[in-house]
């Protein structure tokens, strides 16, 4: 019959019209400002630098300015200048730290390759997406201070991943300490032989 297809179509839209009042599956709009989106744990936006202790972020930055992320970043939007002096890191070893660590968020496409290639878990992906500034050039160029965030914050946005990273770092630190203690013991046992082998930085 000529109109049957059209009538079936009208029935579908009628079902949706009625459904939108009682069936949540047929009323999918989340009104953004009032209803904040619950982002899944893996969701990523712009990167941030992890600092072990929130109180003194610049002091406890995990980043050792090895510039691997600067080389690997596809759009080349990370800019690092090494520090002249060294400071002890969490495991007590003397490490460099970044004097300048700037990410230009107008170029960064949050592809998280820097997180993937960073051997020191110093940079992780944030979940803040509503960042707008009035100044196109310097406003979006986030420097070291703006990028650094505490480990607790990292735990709050990526819980499972954060616990894994902490467990691994703790294990490495313990291994480094045993090696240092063993080396110290070896040095104590044979004070006369050549200078004690310098402890290798954890690979």
């Amino acid at each position: 019959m000529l109109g049957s297809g059209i009538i079936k179509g009208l029935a579908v839209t009628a079902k949706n019209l009625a459904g939108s009042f009682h069936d949540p599956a047929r009323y999918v709009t989340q009104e953004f400002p009032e209803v904040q989106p619950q982002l899944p744990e893996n969701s990523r936006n712009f990167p941030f630098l992890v600092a072990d202790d929130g109180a003194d972020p610049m002091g406890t930055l995990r980043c050792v300015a090895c510039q691997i992320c600067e080389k690997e970043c596809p759009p080349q939007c990370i800019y690092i200048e090494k520090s002249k002096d060294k400071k002890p890191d969490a495991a007590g070893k003397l490490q460099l730290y970044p004097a300048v660590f700037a990410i230009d968020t107008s170029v960064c496409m949050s592809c998280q390759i820097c997180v993937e290639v960073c051997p020191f878990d110093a940079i992780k992906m944030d979940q803040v997406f509503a960042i707008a500034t009035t100044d196109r050039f310097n406003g979006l160029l986030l420097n070291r201070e703006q990028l650094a965030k505490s480990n607790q914050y990292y735990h709050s946005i990526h819980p499972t991943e954060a616990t894994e990273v902490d467990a691994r770092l703790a294990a490495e630190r313990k291994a480094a300490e045993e090696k240092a203690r063993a080396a110290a013991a070896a040095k104590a046992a044979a004070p006369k032989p050549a200078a004690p082998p310098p402890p290798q930085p954890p690979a």
Partner: protein
Amino acid sequence: MPPAPIFATLDPDRAFLERAPLLVRDFVTGLFPPSLQWLAGNLLAVVVIVLFFASLFALLTLAERKILGRIQNRPGPNRTGPAGLLQPLADAVKTLVKEDIVPRAADQVLHFLAPVVLVSLALMAFAVLPYGRHLVPVELDAAVLYFFAAGAATELAVFMAGWASRNKYSLLAAMRALAQLISYELPLLLSVVPVVMLAGTLSTTGIVAAQAGWTYGVIPHWHVLTPWGAAGFLLFFVSALAESNRSPFDLPEAESELIAGHLTEYSGFKYALFFMAEYFGMTALCGMGVTLFLGGWQAPCAFLEFIPSYAWFFAKLLLLLGVFMWIRGTLPRLRIDQLTRFAWKFLVPLALINLGTAAFWQLSAGWSGPALQLARWLVALALVAGPFTLLGRRLSAGVAPRTYRYAA
């Protein structure tokens, strides 16, 4: 007459709500000296119509966006005012504030005149619709003819809009719009003829009176409940859709092809006027549809008489407008050649055959007794359904859902 309705005391004519509008009118005209009372009465009717239907237009735009939204599982405008109620106000302010760009090459006079003519004609069509038992703005003997005369003149305004903006797209679109309006004028009028024939008069109040009364107190004598009436109503409804450039036939403003058709060169308040004219046209056609087929202000059942007559008219009117919007949210658009072929090869023949069915219905009115009544219905139904399926099959000859095979 079946046993007197239980609400005998509430004689429909004397019910308070029924007479309320008349009391208001008499009070207002009473304020004027007797010589001016005739003028005051009519002016009051004009003012009421313009105010009521302008605000109805405002609410219709909101209702349309809400219904379309709900069909698409989203809320529709709900930011301006509670549940979006101030949205029409916002739209009105926006159109008033927007700059009214008139292309330099355009023909200034016609460019300005087109929307004005369109809106005034659309408003004139409201004069003859019977909104209630005593609420007929103008009591005309040839009311239906007047209504369609006003409708026919709108083509002129569409042409003026298309021609005046001096741009090849809008001229092309104006031509298409005219082709559509003219080819759907015919089925529109032809579907009305059986009603006039059986009601025996051209005046709208007469037609509504012809649909009075109920059998067994429950089934009303509306035209739509007779076989020829149902076919006529469907034809009228489809042609009304096309006449007011609505969903499956909204070719002139087909945004996927010629941007906004003959309205491309209009902006600001003139564009809003075109928009308003389209809604007035749609409401007027729905009003006429209700009057001709759905028994105007007649209540569907005897015992529902206590609800005032104008409430029934507007309930049916809103129902029809809702169906218009429902269709707009569902159906794709027809191409220009399919559109005209559909009108000339399907609607016009059906309308002519419907004339025959109505004539048969009129002649066989005398058949009494259940067996003859049943026969009368069956023959009429056959006269309607037969041509419909035959023509339908011929129209959709090459078009059918297909079955598919799978690769080896």
